[in-house]
């Protein structure tokens, strides 16, 4: 069966520090991969999505970047975090139809 792993679960980082969040999928090949950010108790904002290795589509201009070095690995990065980068980050995969989400990373920038 397919599973999605996202880590870490929580992260507290100082302003100006770098960021790397990793997401991996098991049990499927060539999935579409997504990074969303969610404000407290609200809807999800699409940040990046990828339909294949090395293919990244950016939805919102921001302080973040994404990479897909392997078929089932999706990484969200920042060189210098801002306070406004705080939020709940969710990775998801799909092969058409519904999305399967990871358990999320709660990022607090202090």
């Amino acid at each position: 069966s397919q599973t999605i792993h996202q880590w870490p679960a929580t992260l507290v980082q100082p302003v100006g520090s770098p960021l790397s969040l990793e997401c991996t999928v098991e049990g499927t090949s060539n999935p579409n991969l997504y990074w969303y950010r969610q404000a407290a108790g609200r809807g999800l904002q699409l940040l990046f999505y990828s339909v294949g290795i090395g293919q990244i589509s950016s939805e919102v201009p921001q302080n973040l970047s994404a990479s897909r070095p392997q078929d089932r690995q999706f990484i969200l990065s920042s060189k210098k975090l801002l306070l406004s980068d705080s939020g709940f980050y969710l990775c998801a995969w799909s092969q058409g139809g519904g999305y399967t989400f990871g358990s999320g990373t709660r990022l607090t920038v202090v």
Partner: protein
Amino acid sequence: TQLLEQSPQFLSIQEGENLTVYCNSSSVFSSLQWYRQEPGEGPVLLVTVVTGGEVKKLKRLTFQFGDARKDSSLHITAAQPGDTGLYLCAGEEPGAQKLVFGQGTRLTINP
């Protein structure tokens, strides 16, 4: 990017009551999905509707896709405390492999 407006944003009712959550847009979607999310966790897919006018039932939950594929509703009958959570609708843009989410409806069912 297409927008989805969800209403109400917050809803608190007593156990046993019925409720409806709405998801509206001025744009057409290829499909409409509903998710439920618990605090600190990722959303979990409840249903996907694809055809205009389609109705799907999941126990006490009834989902409907509008005839023009621009809107959807979620109806819960005899709500129970276990139904408490954040309900999110999401639309798939035609020709695009991505979902746009509504703002969510925070539902609280009081015993």
